[in-house]
């Protein structure tokens, strides 16, 4: 999808997710809170795809940024009394970016298991801190009483979740634009090269380490914003935004949809969260079982996730090759 031979113009199929989202807004008003949750996790999944699908960094600690963003937005409200939504977002983004660049700079010198370990350790530390620092984070009870002022002074967060949904939709749209631009740019081509053959990247003069830190930081910022959105829509943050579990969940969602495909990050969370909403309520014990089996099946037989399967059966969904490349 990235590269010099690919046509970057937006295809009509790429507008579908937005049309569907808007349709959902008008046609499914009872599900708007689930919808907002889905949008948030799509943003989270997009951030993960950036480093996993494109740069090839395997991490179990992405929840660290998500959780930090979530708690920052909450704490800014409860401790500092700042309730303006965009300010809260900015604070969360800044905190996540800082954590991203610091931890990235430290851990991206390592590879494979060590890297995985370190990402896990970082999110575990944050979870411990959140658990113990009750005065700041509410500990195991979570942080409640987070207040969010109306957006732009006019749009209140109503109890039907309409404002929340549109707010998250707007955020996701911007995030999508940014990621899409990045993927089709020379930077995105470089990321793919990094994933494909790191040795070669070194040999063509790419400062691999710094590039990884850069993309890691960008990804962390996005994840942090997603976390903040979650706090703002629920006006609450709990411990479940940190640690291994949300990291594992988002990984599953992304794999389900298809890694490195941009829209895998859209499909995965939709399928996962809708299924969780319907099935997990009815059969909670079987939820983990089903997800586990699904994951194993996907890994063994459908490595590319849902998008990968669609690719096999519907060839028209493949990206167009740039006409200019073959015109010579």
């Amino acid at each position, binding site marked *: 999808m*990235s590269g010099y*031979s690919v046509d*970057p113009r937006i295809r009509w199929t790429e507008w579908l997710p937005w049309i569907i989202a808007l349709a959902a807004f008008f046609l499914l008003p009872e599900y708007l809170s689930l919808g907002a949750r889905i949008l948030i996790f799509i943003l989270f999944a997009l951030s993960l795809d950036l480093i996993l699908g494109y740069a090839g960094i395997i991490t179990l600690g992405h929840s660290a940024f998500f959780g930090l963003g979530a708690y920052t937005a909450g704490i800014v409200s409860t401790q500092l009394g700042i309730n303006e939504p965009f300010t809260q977002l900015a604070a969360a983004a800044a905190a996540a970016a800082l954590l991203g660049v610091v931890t990235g700079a430290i851990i991206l010198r390592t590879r494979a298991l060590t890297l995985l370990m370190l990402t896990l350790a970082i999110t575990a530390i944050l979870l411990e801190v959140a658990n113990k620092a009750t005065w700041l984070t509410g500990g195991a009870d979570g942080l409640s009483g987070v207040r969010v002022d109306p957006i732009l002074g006019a749009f209140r967060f109503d109890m039907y979740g309409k404002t929340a949904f549109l707010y998250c939709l707007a955020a996701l749209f911007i995030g999508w634009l940014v990621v899409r*631009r990045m993927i089709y740019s020379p930077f995105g*081509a470089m990321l793919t090269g990094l994933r494909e*053959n790191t040795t070669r*990247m070194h040999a063509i*003069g790419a400062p691999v380490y710094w590039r990884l830190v850069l993309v890691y930081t960008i990804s962390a910022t996005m994840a942090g914003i997603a976390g903040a959105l979650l706090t703002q829509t629920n006006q609450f943050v709990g411990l479940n935004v940190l640690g291994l579990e949300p990291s594992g969940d988002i990984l599953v969602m992304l794999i389900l949809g298809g890694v490195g495909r941009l829209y895998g990050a859209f499909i995965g969370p939709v399928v996962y969260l809708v299924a969780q909403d319907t099935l997990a309520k009815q059969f909670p014990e079987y939820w983990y079982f089903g997800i586990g089996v699904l994951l194993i099946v996907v890994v063994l037989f459908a490595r590319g996730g849902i998008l990968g399967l669609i690719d096999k059966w519907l060839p028209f969904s493949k990206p167009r090759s740039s006409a200019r490349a073959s015109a010579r």
Partner: protein
Amino acid sequence: MAAILETQKLCKSFGALTVADNIGFRLEPGARHALIGPNGAGKTTFVNMLTGAIAPTSGKIFLNDQEVTQTSQAARVKRGLGRTFQITTLFRSLPVLDNVALAVAERRGDAQRMWRSASSHREIIDESQDLLATLGLADDAATAAQDLPYGKQRLVEIAIALGLKPRVLLLDEPAAGVPSADTERILQHLEKLSSEIAILIIEHDMDIVFRFAQVITVLVQGQVLVEGPPEAIAADKRVRDVYLGEGEHA
């Protein structure tokens, strides 16, 4: 003439095993220099030290009269050092055009641009396509690198290195594993390379070496055995002993 690439007393040991022993080496600008030696002589290790993939145990390396012993691989590339790999190291699933374009973009400093699309960077694409054309790969631009026949993949290796506009080019067995029919092609392209580039070629194929090189260095067990023009090397008894061993006819 100031050497464009030089090593002084370069040594490399892995524990008790010495792979490079006091190597003093000079590569002149515009040179056509070959490095030969039996298997295990330490040629690839030497090249890896030159490019910065491995750090030497002791000794110094100079590129353009500047010491680069501690400099990173990427930084050396920026100073004009390009290499190809003995085992083809391409971006296998990417089109040939992208393989070269990535190198060109790095050189031009465009690789960090995040806004405009890659395919709209005409300068990069045109330059890449021109490069492919000079190596006879123009028609393969859209093919994935892994789908090319091996001989052409070796040419893509060279194309990527050339995309960096190197002043020094290190070719690690460019014809290795290539069917003999394609070797001639590779050789012709090598001969057409600009005389401004200093080329060091590691090879086992003596035909290529004697046809291409103006200077030959013979490396045996990590040490420089002898260095000189092809005729002198061919006539050198020590070289013949090393290659042909005892008890074989010359």
